[in-house]
């Protein structure tokens, strides 16, 4: 029997049968992990106030057989991310990021990838919890989480020849725009772009800003200068990138879009 003692972030919780609950956790040692919490629905003493969305926990998990579902044996609440509950737009953004990880992260991946993903998701949630969500922030946090999952789009080099797409464009005297091939996952330089390539056209500045956003610490992510038009471009790029490479629309996207578009939701606490 293997025992894991680690921190875990709750990505999703569903009731299972009369008394149990199934939780989707993100941990720095297993990446995403599905666990069963026996008796969690009935007994408030066994997991008191712990199994709720976005809760950061100290957990003890046991797996009796490699093929069986891991069992949550103990959980202690470290952080409930209360600001996320008190602000609908922050809640919507956090749900979107959690769904992204829950549906895209590979279950059971260990090592550095798991540690980096856990750190990135905590950073993104901390950023979402601490400030007013904006379309710019959404695009940057989404990109950071995608990168941590291993689905980072190429932002600088031509995906066909490997050269800096900026440099080749400049040499050819091209405009400030660059062709981005969604299916191939990155920009194409002028020399590699063929007639009929299904590309999006983006400002080079948008790709540079996104590249910068990947390097910024989470607490400074809102300082990145990204105007309304580049933000819209970045969002369109990520939406198309996600749909192509993932193949489905996230369920939480509609609610987040509506709150960010209305712009009327204010912090209440």
């Amino acid at each position, binding site marked *: 029997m293997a025992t894991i003692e680690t921190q875990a972030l709750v990505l999703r919780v569903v009731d299972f049968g009369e008394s149990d609950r199934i939780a989707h956790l993100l941990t720095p040692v297993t990446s995403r992990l599905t666990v069963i919490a026996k008796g969690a629905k009935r007994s408030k003493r066994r997991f008191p*106030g712990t199994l709720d969305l976005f809760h950061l926990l100290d957990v003890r998990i046991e797996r009796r057989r490699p093929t069986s579902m891991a069992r949550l044996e103990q959980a202690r609440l470290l952080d409930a991310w209360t600001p996320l509950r008190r602000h609908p737009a922050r809640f919507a953004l956090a749900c979107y990021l959690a769904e992204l990880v829950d549906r895209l992260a590979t279950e059971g991946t260990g090592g550095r990838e798991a540690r980096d993903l856990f750190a990135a998701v905590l950073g993104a949630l901390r950023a979402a919890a601490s400030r007013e969500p904006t379309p710019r922030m959404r695009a940057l946090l989404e990109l950071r989480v995608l990168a941590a999952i291993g689905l980072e789009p190429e932002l600088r080099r031509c995906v066909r020849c490997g050269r800096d797409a900026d440099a080749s464009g400049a040499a050819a005297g091209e405009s400030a725009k660059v062709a981005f091939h969604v299916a191939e996952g990155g920009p194409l330089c002028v020399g590699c772009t063929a007639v009929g390539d299904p590309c999006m056209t983006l400002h080079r500045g948008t790709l540079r800003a996104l590249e910068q956003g990947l390097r910024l610490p989470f607490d400074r992510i809102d300082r990145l200068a990204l105007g309304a038009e580049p933000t819209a471009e970045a969002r369109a790029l990520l939406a198309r990138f996600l749909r192509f490479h993932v193949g489905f629309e996230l369920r939480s996207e509609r609610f987040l879009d509506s709150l960010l578009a209305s712009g009327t939701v204010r912090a209440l606490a």
Partner: protein
Amino acid sequence: MRTSAPIQRLVAALRRLPGIGEKSATRLTFHLLSAPDAQVHELAEAIVRLKKEIVLCAECFDLTDASPCAICRDARRDASQICVVEEPADLAAIEAAGGYGGRYHVLGGALSPIDGIGPEELRIADLEARVRRGGVREIVLATNPTAEGDATAYYLAERLRDAGAKLTRIASGMPLGGDLEYADPVTIGRSIAHRREMD
């Protein structure tokens, strides 16, 4: 064990009920076989009538056999107070506790974007329309103190902010008979934050 088709059919039907496994379903089936005909017919009729007669109250969306429901028809209940709950079971729990004399609004769940449940999937527009018709002095937001329930309460507070009614949230903290040692830090924190002066 070889059993006849009607027995298998009932066992299979009972197994779909929550908390009923194969053994319980088989035990119930054989109990019904040995029960008097009248008792079995009464049970069957009760199930059929349940589906036929129970509707949603057009006012509060609670389950009822007559719309508007008894609470919405009751002139002694305070119509200026609306308690917003997620499910009919929550309404029943508040009624069982006593002490609340206003009316209700059943949302039909809580916001859960991850499950694709947004405001359109809940009876939020109906609540808004009800409040804007006037005469509502207080809206008690009694969604569960979970992440989704809290987010729903704050979302409703935002949507109803200008409706002219006082918005309140049910208190959360230590349960009666609870033990501080076993309580989670959020519950203890809320209990301390929302402490009140002793009478």
